[in-house]
């Protein structure tokens, strides 16, 4: 078993991606999140930023310093841990030469150039790979380089709309709701990381790199199986009750209900869980003679039990409900945690999920690290680079 307390003590040359050279020109979240993972696993990630302002995420709030200093954007700081920053204006002739020379020695290039940009800048998909046949080039864009939406512009809400996520979030009587932050970008970043590993696996066999596209829209469509499996039916949004489990042959599913100090989510979806829940509420009768094919009856039963549970939770805190239902009744239940509670949570902290990182401009903050621990510990996370901090070291000027 990995021991998190002994974790992250290793030297950089002993990590799974030690020796892997990565150049990242992608900006924002998707490509940089992928680069962040590669850096955490031991790769040398050179982040190329265009002067004078660098990555656009440097301009995004929230900022950790009072004066909205671009070195203190939480989005930039989080997504660029462990990288080196080099300033190159690749939109000038000498700049593209410098970038090309940097990429000619790299194993992986992470970029986010869409079809409009490629055409205006004259960047073909073969440009780098033809000079460096071992190069794995990952191109992360909202819609990809081909197809009817290829020239369209996107943002997280547009992406979540087209990708089918908005349609299932929120109340049926109200407008559909988006996920917080930059979720399509993060998801595509995870997928880009998978694409890099897949291409490297192939390269280990024949020495050849390749150009691989990862798109946000396809990433979202790929993860939408619950909706896609409905066999012709339209999945509707259903507020604090997850509707996917209201199907023939299934007992009532997930509900989010109030406790004294906030809300608690009850997972569901199996007869065993339903019986256990009814037992906990002292209402074993409600789990007897269930007709799982009668959807109306199941829906009614669910409303009834939601009311009973709400009553049952009066006078209890989220934590009391969580610990009692999880420990004593083995029910899948969790409090809806606020951000500061997540940061203080004993489970997350025992796993070493967060690490304090100091930054000369932004100060010290707690950063999420990786969602996994490994039997061979990884290294400590290092702070994000200052704009152009490593230009001299890497370009010699």
């Amino acid at each position: 078993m990995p021991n998190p307390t002994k974790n992250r003590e290793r030297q950089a040359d002993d990590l799974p991606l030690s020796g892997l050279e990565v150049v990242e020109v992608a900006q924002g979240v998707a490509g940089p999140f992928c680069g962040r993972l590669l850096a955490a696993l031991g790769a040398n990630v050179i982040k190329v930023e265009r002067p004078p302002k660098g990555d656009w995420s440097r301009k995004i709030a929230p900022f950790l310093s009072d004066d909205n200093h671009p070195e203190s954007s939480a989005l930039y700081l989080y997504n660029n841990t462990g990288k080196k920053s080099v300033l190159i204006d690749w939109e000038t002739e000498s700049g593209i030469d410098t970038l090309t020379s940097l990429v000619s020695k790299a194993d992986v290039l992470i970029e986010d150039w869409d079809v409009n940009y490629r055409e205006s800048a004259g960047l073909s998909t073969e440009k780098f790979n033809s000079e460096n046949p071992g190069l794995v080039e990952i191109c992360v864009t909202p819609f990809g380089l081909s197809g009817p939406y290829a020239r369209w512009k996107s943002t997280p809400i547009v992406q979540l709309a087209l990708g089918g996520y908005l349609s299932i979030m929120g109340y049926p009587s109200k407008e559909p709701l988006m996920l917080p932050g930059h979720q399509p970008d993060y998801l595509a970043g995870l997928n880009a990381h998978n694409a890099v590993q897949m291409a490297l696996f192939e390269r280990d066999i024949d020495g050849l790199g390749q150009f691989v596209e990862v798109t946000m829209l396809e990433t979202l469509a790929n993860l939408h199986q619950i909706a896609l499996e409905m066999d012709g039916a339209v999945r509707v949004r259903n507020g604090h009750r997850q509707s996917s489990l209201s199907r023939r042959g299934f007992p009532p599913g997930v509900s989010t209900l109030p406790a004294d100090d906030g809300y608690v989510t009850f997972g569901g979806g199996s007869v065993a869980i339903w019986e256990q829940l009814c037992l906990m509420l002292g209402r074993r009768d409600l789990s007897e003679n269930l007709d799982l094919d009668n959807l109306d009856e199941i829906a009614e039963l669910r409303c009834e039990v939601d009311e009973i549970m709400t009553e049952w939770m009066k006078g209890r805190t989220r934590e009391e409900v969580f610990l009692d239902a999880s420990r004593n009744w083995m029910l899948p239940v969790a409090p809806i945690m606020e951000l500061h509670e997540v940061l203080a949570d004993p489970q997350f902290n025992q796993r070493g999920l967060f690490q304090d990182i100091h930054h000369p401009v932004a100060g010290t903050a707690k950063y999420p690290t990786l969602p996994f621990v490994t039997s061979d510990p990884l290294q400590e996370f290092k702070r994000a680079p200052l704009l152009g901090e490593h230009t001299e070291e890497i370009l010699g000027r």
Partner: protein
Amino acid sequence: MNGKKSTTIRSSGALKGVRVVDLTRVWAGPLGTRILGDFGAEVIKVSDPRLPADRMGGLYGKLNRNKSSLGLRLDTEVGRRIFLELVTISDVVIENFRPRVMPNLNLTYDEIMKANPSIVMCAMPGYGAEGPYAEFPAFGSTAEAASGVVSMLGYTTDRPIQTGMSYADPVSGLNSVGVVLTYLRRSRATGKGQYIDLALADSPVCMIGEYLVANSAISYLPTERGNEHPDHAPHGVNRADGDDNWVAISVTTNDEWQALCSVIGGDRLSDSRFSTQDGRKRFEEDIDAVISDWAKSRDTVSIMTQLQEAGVRAGRVSNNQELLNDPHLAANDFFADIDEGENGLKRYDGQSIRGNILDKSEWKAGPILGQDSKHVLVNLLGYSEADCAALAIDGTSVFNDESSTQS
């Protein structure tokens, strides 16, 4: 560049020759192993032979395509021995039980490593292998609540709303692939295995990193709810013609604002209050009212197309059926139509990593429990037909391949 896929395609299935023993259930784990299968890995799903066998279609089918099925009891000495033999000839083991389950079966990482020191083992428990909540049950729907994501989602700050899609599951499934492949490459190079403990609840935490960083440093809490953006306006969804049809619109620059005004026309938007981003943010409701008036009698596809062609970020709110018929996804050959036997041909989402996948003509539907038991036991592990008959009789395995059902 247009109209042609630029991804290099040089072989079918980058992971051909990789064998994965898949003990996962529900969503997160099966999604991870499905991705490995899409790229040609031989994914052997090991299931208890006492489970019902008729589970090819639906969500199960979607998540278990390109996998084989071995029926095997792990809680008997014979079954456990066969499992360890399979581990010996495999590269990866993935499971998402609660932490006590594998030790109870005497199948700890140490035992598995004894059988195969190069093995990459990925456990995907709810809260991790150790710690105060380690044995608590968790689903994607509850792990997303624990992760903080849900606290930022809702129409108002006092009533959080779930994602409706058990967000921790897909995020955790995606995470498993990259880390498993990282250590698999290393195992191939050095012979050294690895144990990975990937927690369902940790995965979504890492998707809101910037908010947690800011909360820890300056107690930052995002106050915007619904579809509000902290800076941009308009930003949200507008009702279009029809029952429950909506279009998302987001204006991020002055140019995009001008483009929106020119598409909508009239003079209600040519108001000096709206000429700057700050002004638009301040009078967002007034702007939304004008857009809603314009959108309500138009259809979603024409609104989105007209706006995008003018340079405005817009997208219709596709439901699951519209997503399955999306023209852009279809033009990129994203979907896969797979024969589900008695269910007929069913449309599946394809693979979003373009390149290196197993050729779609080789894709197969989710397996019937035990359909590959004979193949695994006889062809891979060297058991005889007579051995299989004995394993069927004592219930260690189950055989649902065509030759078995005929006999």
